[in-house]
């Protein structure tokens, strides 16, 4: 059973590496969205510094949204999804492997680049560490919750638009706790509460979303 988990994880990572050029797209999009904010809001560093946590996190949400499709789309199209469903392996375990692979491919780069960008937005050093922690804990949640949305819409022709509508409201708690944690850190307040909530959300989503995604995939495939 564990062997199945690791082979699917390994498989998805290999597939991503074989399309190396595409790996950069989510990160580039992330950077682009962050860059748009000073352009749209004005270069007043006082304002930017104040809203930097929100900017970084909203950009992370949008970048996650853009990259979600890849979790199940090719598998559905080439028939490997069906094979996973009728294999004698628990589907939720395989989905968990795919979620983790997705995060490693699209979320981890954001975790690395995010704090760097925050510096350019004037976020004080005290908050950068918290930003890193929230990104590390929060981006896997985005992959997990997103997987349920993709599982529901992967069979649709124009599923992309509906995917955003389904997934963004579910992302709101992550956005709130993460950005407020960084805000608190910037103002010198304790961050334990929101970070603890984020961690709880991470555990909850990793344990529950594979089941939901599995049920949704069975529906999509039928």
């Amino acid at each position: 059973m564990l062997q199945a988990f690791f082979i699917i994880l390994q498989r998805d990572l290999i597939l991503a590496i074989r399309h190396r050029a595409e790996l950069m797209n989510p990160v580039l999009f992330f950077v682009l969205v962050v860059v748009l904010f000073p352009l749209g809001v004005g270069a007043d560093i006082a304002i930017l510094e104040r809203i930097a946590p929100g900017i970084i996190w909203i950009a992370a949400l949008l970048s996650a949204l853009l990259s979600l499709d890849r979790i199940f789309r090719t598998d559905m199209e080439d028939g490997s999804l069906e094979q996973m469903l009728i294999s004698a392996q628990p589907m939720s375990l395989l989905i968990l492997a795919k979620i983790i692979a997705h995060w490693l491919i699209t979320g981890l780069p954001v975790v690395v680049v995010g704090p760097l960008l925050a510096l350019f937005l004037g976020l004080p050093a005290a908050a950068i560490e918290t930003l890193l922690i929230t990104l590390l804990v929060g981006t896997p949640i985005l992959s997990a919750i997103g997987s349920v949305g993709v599982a529901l819409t992967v069979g649709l022709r124009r599923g992309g638009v509906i995917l955003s509508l389904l997934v963004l409201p579910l992302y709101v708690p992550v956005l709130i706790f993460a950005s407020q944690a960084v805000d608190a850190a910037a103002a010198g307040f304790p961050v334990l509460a929101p970070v603890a909530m984020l961690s709880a959300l991470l555990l909850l989503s990793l344990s529950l979303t594979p089941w939901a995604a599995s049920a949704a995939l069975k529906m999509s495939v039928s």
Partner: protein
Amino acid sequence: MIMRFIYKLGSPPYFYHLSSRLLPWLSGICLLLFAIGLYGGLVLAPADYQQGDSFRIIYIHVPAAWLSLFVYMVMAASGVMALIWRIKIAEIVLINSAHIGAVFTFLALVTGSIWGKPMWGTWWVWDARLTSELLLLFLYLGIIALHSAIDDKRKAARAVAILAIVGVVNIPIIHYSVEWWSTLHQGPTVTKFDKPSIDTRMLVPLLVMAVAYKFLYAIVVLLRARNDLLWRERRSQWVASLFTDTKSK
């Protein structure tokens, strides 16, 4: 015995005929409740010492907000039944409740906004309740959009059932996070949407209105469900016999 009743309710002809018999009664009670509630709220209840008469919009706003959550719960429960037992009636109640719930949520938002104008002079305020309600509207719209995007309606029902259940788990999380978020910036000022100790003469009509709204929901969902059911089962015997029976009368 209750289980038998619920089991029978899953049969489309039984559901249809039972609802035909119930609807006149439900409508009568609903009208009565609305009359009592509105009279109590608009005429009998005294004017609020702070807000004057403009507080009376709570008789529309608050029951709508309560109902928007109640309908979501009913929707999620129907979703569970639709997923586990694949009962067609549950599937139909599910999607029709989504439409009705969305309307009530929208009503709550609009009346909340209208109430806010004389209070703070703005058409919208980002407080916990209204923001939560707004997100709830998006959850409803997501369900409606997903359902209409899938052609096979039985498959669509499964999809939407899963989404509704996922939503139900998320609603408390979203609600709590938004409440926490709003206390950070608004400070301890209690919003007028909160209910401080409320005079019984104001409270009773409110509760009556809440029950009236629930009856309204029951009526509308039955009407819509019957329509949906007739369309879905249009090729079946019992639907055909509905027309032949009335003709022979």
